């Protein structure tokens, strides 16, 4: 996956992500696609979450899935989640939960949903995502509504391993970009989507930040690859939320 929160010259934020999923879960020899990625593309939906008769927030989902990987609370914050791989990963959390050792820990995508349901600002969401015990490691990428409100929260099960904030300790003061590696770690050389993503963002520049600009970055190889199922584009200040189907036919890197 690749998530980006970027700021235009007026201080407006665009938050976007490519969802890549289905690695090693079967390969379709006829279409030359990952089997599961192919099937997931048919199941993408957008959801308006309604409470007390009013729109509470928006998200997109794979049908049948009740948690949240991407969501936006209008005029408040936007959130995406990228996989974080650790030895003490999801299995460890599940076993602890089954043994009753972590009854209060949250499942990843349900914590995201709970945050969108209950938190009303970037600061509130950040605090909740950083400090709630959970059952699996993850990167929460959070965008707000005010300039410089962009953060990558690298979560372990019981704490935040690393917080990277736009304009504070990020490599660039106008965007943050997360794939599936800690910000202080080199990506695996065969899975480096950071370098192409950052190169393309520098080509875009701050002046080019918009749905169009960021979509073009996320439609560039290898941020776009055979696992990519969709790109979601979110903007909290004008409540725009667009999901666009993606694929990478032909000669395209498998992940």
């Amino acid at each position, binding site marked *: 996956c690749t998530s980006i929160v970027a700021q235009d010259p007026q201080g407006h934020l665009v938050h976007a992500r490519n969802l890549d999923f289905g690695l090693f*879960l*079967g390969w379709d020899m006829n279409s030359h696609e990952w*089997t*599961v990625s192919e*099937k*997931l593309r*048919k*199941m*993408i*939906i*957008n*959801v*308006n*979450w*309604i*409470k007390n008769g009013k729109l509470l927030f928006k998200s*997109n989902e794979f*049908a*049948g*899935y*009740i*948690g949240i990987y991407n969501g936006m609370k209008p005029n408040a914050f936007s959130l995406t989640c990228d*996989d974080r*791989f*650790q030895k003490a*990963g*999801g*299995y460890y959390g*599940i076993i602890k939960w089954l043994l009753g050792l972590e009854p209060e820990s949250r*499942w*990843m*995508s*349900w914590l995201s949903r709970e945050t969108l*349901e209950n938190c009303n600002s970037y600061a509130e969401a950040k605090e909740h995502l950083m400090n709630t015990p959970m*059952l*699996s*490691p*993850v990167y929460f990428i959070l965008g707000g509504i005010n300039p410089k409100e962009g953060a990558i929260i690298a979560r372990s099960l019981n704490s935040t391993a690393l917080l990277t904030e736009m304009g504070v300790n990020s490599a660039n003061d106008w965007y943050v970009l997360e794939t599936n590696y800690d910000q202080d770690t080199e990506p695996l050389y065969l899975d*480096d989507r950071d*370098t192409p993503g950052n190169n*393309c963002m520098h*080509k*875009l520049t701050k002046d*080019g930040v918009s*749905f*169009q600009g960021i*979509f*073009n*970055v996320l*439609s*560039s*190889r*290898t941020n776009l690859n055979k696992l990519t199922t*969709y790109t979601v584009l979110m903007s909290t200040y004008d409540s725009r939320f*667009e999901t*666009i*189907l993606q694929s990478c036919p032909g*000669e*395209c*890197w498998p992940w």
Partner: protein
Amino acid sequence: KHVDLPKPFADDCILNDGKNVYDPSRQFDIPWFDVNLDAAPKDRWTHIAAVYKDDINDLIQSLINFVTPIFPGALEFVDHTFGDMGSKLPMPYRDEIQGISDATGIPLGRIVVYNIFYEIFTV
């Protein structure tokens, strides 16, 4: 260190060619649904599950087909162990997942696995 991929697969920022592939009308390819948090958890997803019943089943079946040759007992394990786990999940998620299982006719354990797949996949 960054390693260049074989040429046909290599990085390619489409902005280098001055291209634009963003077409906002493509957002309408993805349907919108309402999920009403004021409704009973069991009923919140049934309208979506009814539409996508075959796709959900097809996806889960392809995972089963992929896993069972390697772990022949996997299906029974999923149906029993994760089926039992379904009843221990916190509310309102427990009832929402049960509602999807009822609406699709897919056993509870398989819907549970689909919904906690992130935790399983992080290995």
